[in-house]
């Protein structure tokens, strides 16, 4: 797999606007961002309303995902180009989610919405009209999704990558610094986890660093053993989807899972070990 298999740049998107078979999809942390302006022709997915089960803590099921993509006019043969704000944080989550349900022809716009905006490229407010499709999803690919028992079993055995900020890793904050600190669970991290904040993989304009820089970041600097399987986690599984994308899609690591339960689940479990303090 090469970068061009999983990433497109802003110029590529600009020159393929309106092409049949290519669907731009915006997924933002700020779910109102799309309504203020988006790339022409892009459809919106709301990471919470559209992708999360409204009752229990889980994703929408296979039938729900099929209904969602059918209603948005996305077909199985379409190339889906995802983009969003905050270094593609939630777009990377959606990418992982599309892969989870077996949509293989999906890519990220490198740099996402921020790069597009900082380049002063055109944004529009009108939403496109797309005919409904009959989308068929596959069963979830559990080889890229970790659950809590996988994480406990991985302590001291597999690579565990905690991609939150250093203050969250140490237990000083319970949420990212742009959100109120309101979680009730314990602070800290999973023992033996390495702290590599997700954002280190991105440059200031939101584009990904080079493969060499990324390999140095996770290998030489953080001490990940590339010969071992890896589980990435954060607070609710979105930032770690960004790191999953880096390790699995850009660096080609074969066995990388995203633990979407992440710290809001692990930090509330009874009896599991927790470590406090800064990364070593």
């Amino acid at each position, binding site marked *: 797999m090469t970068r061009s298999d999983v990433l497109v740049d802003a110029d590529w998107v600009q020159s393929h606007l309106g092409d049949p078979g290519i669907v731009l999809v915006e997924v933002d942390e*700020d779910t109102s961002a799309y309504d203020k302006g988006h790339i022409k022709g892009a459809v919106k997915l709301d990471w919470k309303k559209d992708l999360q089960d409204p009752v229990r803590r889980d994703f929408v099921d296979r039938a729900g995902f099929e209904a969602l993509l059918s209603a948005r006019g996305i077909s199985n043969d379409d190339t889906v180009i995802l983009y969003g704000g*905050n270094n593609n944080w939630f777009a990377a989550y959606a990418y992982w989610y599309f892969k989870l349900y077996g949509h293989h022809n999906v890519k990220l716009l490198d740099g996402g919405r921020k790069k597009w905006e900082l380049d002063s490229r055109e944004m529009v407010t009108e939403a496109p009209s797309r005919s409904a499709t009959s989308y068929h999803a596959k069963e979830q690919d559990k080889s890229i999704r970790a659950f809590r028992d996988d994480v406990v079993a991985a302590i001291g055995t597999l690579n565990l990558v905690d991609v939150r*900020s250093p203050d969250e890793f140490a237990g000083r904050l319970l949420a990212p610094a*742009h959100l109120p600190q309101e979680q009730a669970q314990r602070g800290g991290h999973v023992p033996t986890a390495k702290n590599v904040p997700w954002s*280190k993989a*991105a440059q200031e304009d939101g584009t990904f660093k080079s493969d060499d820089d990324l390999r140095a970041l996770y290998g030489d600097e953080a001490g990940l053993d590339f010969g071992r399987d890896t589980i990435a986690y954060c607070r609710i599984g979105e930032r770690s989807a960004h790191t999953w994308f880096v390790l699995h899609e850009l660096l080609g690591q074969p066995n990388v899972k995203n633990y979407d339960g992440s710290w809001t689940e692990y930090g509330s479990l009874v009896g599991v070990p927790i470590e406090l303090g800064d990364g070593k």
Partner: protein
Amino acid sequence: MPAGGSGGSSPRASGCGAPAGGIKITDGIGTQAIVQGHVTSAGTPVPSGYARLLNTDGEFVAEVPLGDDGGFIFYAAPGDWTLRVLAPGGIRSECVVSAQKGKITQLELTV
């Protein structure tokens, strides 16, 4: 400046989704260490751009798109931080701030 002040317009949220400008809290700052403010250019709010919070090592910690009023808000740990603003047209500006628990640090940036 009342708790939460300006810089966001949505109610407190429990998820991880932050609206442009950040999430305003409504029931007092309590133990929060808030860094907030506005970005203006020639007296006019800059609504299109990003505010980034960097730690003392210069490492990125958080980012919000600016609100319609050019506002931003962060809930930092107490300590020193660098606030950097990016906006279209190659605009890049930053300043160093000190966050304290239970207090709002207000910034007005001109770019």
